């Protein structure tokens, strides 16, 4: 009683420290890493800093699991954040991606260029932004989260400052990204203007009461917001930056972006649309569906005839985003679960693929070119197998997690009376076979001519090996290890998907506004 009065008297917010502890772990980790990096010296740079980063991520994972609970979301800090399975589950994905990236970046040029402390700190900062985003409960947090996510990435993309393409990708990402966030901001402003609130909960309750769902102001706001978020998730036609930035950025950064950024983007898309704007679903669902179709088609046809693996993966990433968007469109718990499931799967298969690309481009004279994989099957099966598994999974062959993911998505679409979207997904995967299978063919069935139609490349790829002399196939165990782990996970969850299903199921429960599966 007495204490209550005291708390009431002091107008300080109630902060659930347990709830935001993962966020603290990451943010604090970044600071510690920075400080540690002040001590120059090989040991600190090569061993201590990475270790600290891993420690921070590990701590975050632990805390997240500690926080784990199913059921409805729990707003904390005056409803700025929500701690619920959707947030927790997806942030787990960020952390895992982060761990993999630590290994990938360990020998990278970018690390040497920017200094490991700065590199890892920036990465952690970005992860912090993602964590915020995943649990954002109001528009302001949303915006800050997105910026905290993006700005470090702009830097990381450009961090190989001596390489022109790295700078180019950095600038492109920055400019287009800022346009995106400006659009988003404007949209959020309109939504705020239409509803008078910034909290998702209040917005949801305002829709249909204080403001009609078909109010032009609101809808324009939604349109702007969709555009902004679609940009982050690299959904066509807002995808154009993706291939260029992915190709130009240092490959570890590309891997990180490809998986984590997309996951974060979908996290916030799910929150905004399934929580705040759920009652306007009739209005936004068709638009998103159209975007999904465009994305699936554009992404898949774009990926064909790419000679750079990073580029190919970028395009395929666009296509995959389309698949997941279909899960959002459905707007049911099942759809939510399917999307979450696919995001997890997406992490494993892409990380496996990127790991191989990294391992190869450091030693091959073809860099990240498709040719760099020629004859890999007999040369080093340890790399060829993960790549093969990743490609098969991306193409959606059975006994890989990718198949289950597609299956789940399709059943979600059919269940939500969007059967034709399911068919579109299928059509997309048909087209995708062309380029996924070609990668496998190059690895196992060479020597043979890779026919690559299309634009002549301006820049012939130079060996990156010159930049990191100690990198040679035998000397990057950490990369190979991560790759193998990811591939193993892809297969494992293809055969025993239940763990992921439970995760996805909890995620699905976190937004009770949705109609049950």
């Amino acid at each position, binding site marked *: 009683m007495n204490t209550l009065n005291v708390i009431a008297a002091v107008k300080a917010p109630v902060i659930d420290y347990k709830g935001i502890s993962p966020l603290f772990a990451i943010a604090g980790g970044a600071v510690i890493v920075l400080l540690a990096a002040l001590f120059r010296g090989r040991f600190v740079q090569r061993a201590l800093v990475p270790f600290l980063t891993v420690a921070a991520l590990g701590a975050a994972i632990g805390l997240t699991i500690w926080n784990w609970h199913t059921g409805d979301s729990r707003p904390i800090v005056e409803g700025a954040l929500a701690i619920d399975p959707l947030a927790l589950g997806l942030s787990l994905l960020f952390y895992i991606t982060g761990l993999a990236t630590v290994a990938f970046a360990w020998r990278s040029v970018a690390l040497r260029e920017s200094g490991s402390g700065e590199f890892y700190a920036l990465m952690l900062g970005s992860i912090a932004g993602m964590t915020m985003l995943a649990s954002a409960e109001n528009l302001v947090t949303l915006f800050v989260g997105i910026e905290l996510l993006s700005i470090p990435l702009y830097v990381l993309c450009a961090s190989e400052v001596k390489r022109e393409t790295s700078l180019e990708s950095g*600038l492109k990402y920055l400019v287009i990204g800022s346009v995106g966030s400006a659009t988003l901001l404007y949209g959020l402003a309109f939504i705020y203007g239409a509803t008078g609130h910034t909290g998702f909960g209040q917005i949801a309750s305002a829709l249909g009461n204080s403001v009609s769902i078909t109010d032009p102001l609101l809808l324009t706001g939604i349109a702007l917001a969709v555009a902004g978020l679609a940009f982050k998730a690299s959904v066509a036609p807002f995808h154009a930056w993706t291939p260029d930035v992915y190709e130009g950025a240092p490959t570890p950064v590309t891997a990180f972006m490809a998986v984590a950024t997309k996951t974060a983007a979908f996290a916030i898309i799910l929150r905004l649309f399934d929580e705040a704007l759920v009652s306007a679903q009739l209005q936004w669902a068709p638009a998103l569906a159209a975007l999904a179709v465009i994305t699936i088609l554009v992404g898949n046809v774009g990926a064909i005839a790419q000679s750079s693996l990073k580029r190919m993966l970028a395009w395929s990433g666009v296509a995959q985003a389309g698949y997941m968007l279909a899960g959002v469109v459905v707007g049911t718990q099942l759809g939510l679960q399917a999307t979450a499931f696919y995001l997890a799967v997406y992490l494993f298969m892409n990380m496996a693929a990127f790991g191989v690309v990294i391992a190869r481009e450091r030693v091959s004279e073809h860099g990240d070119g498709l040719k760099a994989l020629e004859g890999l099957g007999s040369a080093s099966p340890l790399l060829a197998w993960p790549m093969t598994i990743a490609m098969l999974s991306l193409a959606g062959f059975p006994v890989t997690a990718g198949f289950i993911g597609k299956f789940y998505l399709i059943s979600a679409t059919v269940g939500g009376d969007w059967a034709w979207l399911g068919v579109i997904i299928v059509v997309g995967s048909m087209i995708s076979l062309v380029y996924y299978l070609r990668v496998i063919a190059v690895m196992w069935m060479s020597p043979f001519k890779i026919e690559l139609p299309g634009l002549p490349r301006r820049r012939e790829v130079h060996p990156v090996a010159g930049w990191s002399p100690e990198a040679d196939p035998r000397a990057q165990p950490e990369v190979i290890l991560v790759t193998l782990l990811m591939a193993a996970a892809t297969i494992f969850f293809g055969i025993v998907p239940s763990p992921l299903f439970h995760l996805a199921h909890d995620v699905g429960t976190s937004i009770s506004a949705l109609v049950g599966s």
Partner: protein
Amino acid sequence: MNITWYLVLSAFLFTIGAVGVLTRRNPLVILLCLELMLNAGNLALIAFSRMWGNGDGQIFALVVMVVAACEVVVGLGIIVGIFRRRIPEDVDALSELRG
């Protein structure tokens, strides 16, 4: 003066910013145009904040200012890098990544 007026004004500013991004080739100027767009957002936010009489919008705007500053910093950093790399300050010159 009606709130509508402010909003229309901000729409104009936003558009001008966009046009700038599309038409200018100097990365510096493009950054400036981005600032314009963000400020248009700010104006809208504050107008709405006034309209509803709650402070959320103003806080939002404040945050946006910070964000804008950060973008500027990073952007300028990249531009400096480009300059050091002896590449002309022309975004069209940076089009090696394509296809």
